[in-house]
């Protein structure tokens, strides 16, 4: 009998500061036993529990896509005790990783559709995995147009800046970056809140459109309103949620929204699934 609470040992192989304030860092993690890497089969949109013995665990979305071989990518914003401890660790240090958990994005439903990805701030991690997955040569033809609206308060806050530039150069994805305040950075992209940009650049809702979203509460709330006005049905708006969680397997009881556990039944839900329990959001 396997114990679902025991993590795979992994080693930090690379640390990247995503933002100049150093509050958001990306960690590449390598399984110490290569066999564990083959056991760890995931889809974009799933998450894992990163574990530091003596500190605790943190549920973090997997930012690398299954199409990327080798080390797994996790981008962690420093907030509390465990994330702060991780931020203080160095390349070569070992931590634990268990998962993958959750349902991931609805790939079967997304196939053949126009995809509108809406993201904000440091919650862009699993959306990165999803976009990366869709842009692989084998996968790209399975989707119609791909729109991405990704916003931050300022240009500094955007994650994966090199990758964003690469995507901008491509002709098969329509990437729209936006900031609330460009400052003196010579910003040449959109200025304005994510929902405003969604209204401006995303196609109207139809049977052929799927919106996939992850970001702060306010962004989600107003982007949902925008998409509803653009006639996206609630069944075609997918939200990736983050709640406080401990076990990751639907047992410890805290991450539920109505009858659904974010860790187990989510973290990706349609708006239609959540509407009846919105008092829990």
């Amino acid at each position, binding site marked *: 009998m*396997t114990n*679902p609470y025991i993590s795979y040992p992994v080693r930090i192989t690379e640390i990247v500061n995503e933002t100049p304030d150093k509050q958001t860092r990306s960690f590449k993690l390598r399984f110490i036993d290569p066999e564990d890497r083959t056991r760890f089969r995931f889809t974009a949109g799933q998450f894992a529990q990163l574990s530091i*013995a003596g500190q605790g665990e943190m549920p973090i979305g997997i930012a690398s896509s299954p199409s990327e071989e080798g080390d797994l990518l996790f981008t962690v914003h420093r*907030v509390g005790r465990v994330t702060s401890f991780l931020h203080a660790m160095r390349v070569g240090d070992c931590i634990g990783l268990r998962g993958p958990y959750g349902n991931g994005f609805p790939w079967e439903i997304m196939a053949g559709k126009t995809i509108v990805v809406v993201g904000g701030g440091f919650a862009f991690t699993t959306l990165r995995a999803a976009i990366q997955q869709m842009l692989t040569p084998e996968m790209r033809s399975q989707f119609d147009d791909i729109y991405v609206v990704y916003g931050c308060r300022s240009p500094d806050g955007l994650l994966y800046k090199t990758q964003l530039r690469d995507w901008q150069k491509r002709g098969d994805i329509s990437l729209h970056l936006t900031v609330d305040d460009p400052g003196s950075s010579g910003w040449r992209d959109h200025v304005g809140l994510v929902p405003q940009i969604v209204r401006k650049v995303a196609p109207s809702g139809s049977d052929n459109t799927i919106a996939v979203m992850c970001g702060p509460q306010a962004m989600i709330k107003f982007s949902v309103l925008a998409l509803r006005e653009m006639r996206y049905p609630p069944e075609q708006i997918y939200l990736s949620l983050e709640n406080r969680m401990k076990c990751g397997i*639907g*047992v410890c009881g805290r991450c539920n929204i109505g009858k659904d556990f974010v860790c*187990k*039944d989510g973290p990706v839900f349609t708006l239609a699934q959540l*509407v*009846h329990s919105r008092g829990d959001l």
Partner: protein
Amino acid sequence: MKAFILPKPEIGNFLEAVAGGHPLWIPAEEDGIVSFCRYDGGSEVCLDAKPRIPAKRFFLPQWEEMFAFEVATADPVIRLAESTDAVRRQVVFGVRPCDAKAVQLLAMVFMNCHTTPDKDIYFQRRIDSTVLIGWACNSPDPTCFCNALGGHPHGQEALDALMIDLGNEILVKLITDQARAVVAQYSMAEADERSLSRASRLAESVMATMPKGLKLGRPCGEDTEALFGLSLWEETAEQCLNCGICTYLCPTCSCFDILDHVEQNGGCRFRTWDSCMFSLFTRQGSGYNPRSTRAKRLRQRFMHKLKYFPERHNGRVSCVGCGRCVEFCPVNIDIREVAERMTISNGA
């Protein structure tokens, strides 16, 4: 199933024989509170009141080590040693039928884990190693309502054995092989027809004293959104202290926290009971809390028991009618009244 007769004065010898083979827990009175205590030969069994803390503690202890770790400086790899503490067989005597039934409901959470093949190994080990000897309720408390949830004061569900007090003798029903093995050391006379029919008449007469017409199963048929909108939550929350006693004493409440304990070069990861009544239970790293008010937390407790759990588990309500939350709530919040108010439609 075989049934035997144990003359009442022999109960001490019977427990002695059982304890000879395995660690034994019995209900005993300590500082005026009946709780399960480790039998040590001298302990006096108390069967007058149901133990305050239910038998769930044998499957989900209030504090349980999950594994130990070592943080050696020379080698940064963390070594994990799983706790093997829980694998020893133990016998719990004097378990009320409601508490045993609750173990079945807990198993739905811990051993299904919904869709993963991963069972909760700690719970599983304890299920495998624990023998439950039940004690039928002949005089249920005024706060008892097991019958409203399909239970019975003489119910046998999830028990390995059931003992029924017939006055000067005790009828011992051995339900599982585990129970037969545990009492094999003690020889008892087989029960005759007369004792068996006395027991079934007694079961009927006790059942007749139970409350009628409670609607604990009804809220699960109601519309979620309508239930969320009830004024009940705000009104009841005005009384509620969010003290959490209802969740701690509930035989089916099983929410837990996972924490690390550290000493110099090592420590352990452990889990403890947690409660949906506490605001930190759901507070996120950002500071945002989806259940930030007492009303929302109170709603969560009742919705989980009466609406979400049945929706996930074939209509089974996550309450066994033991009445502890009713009896011990410092402000008299009563799940029977809450369920009544959650029954809003006029359906059958």
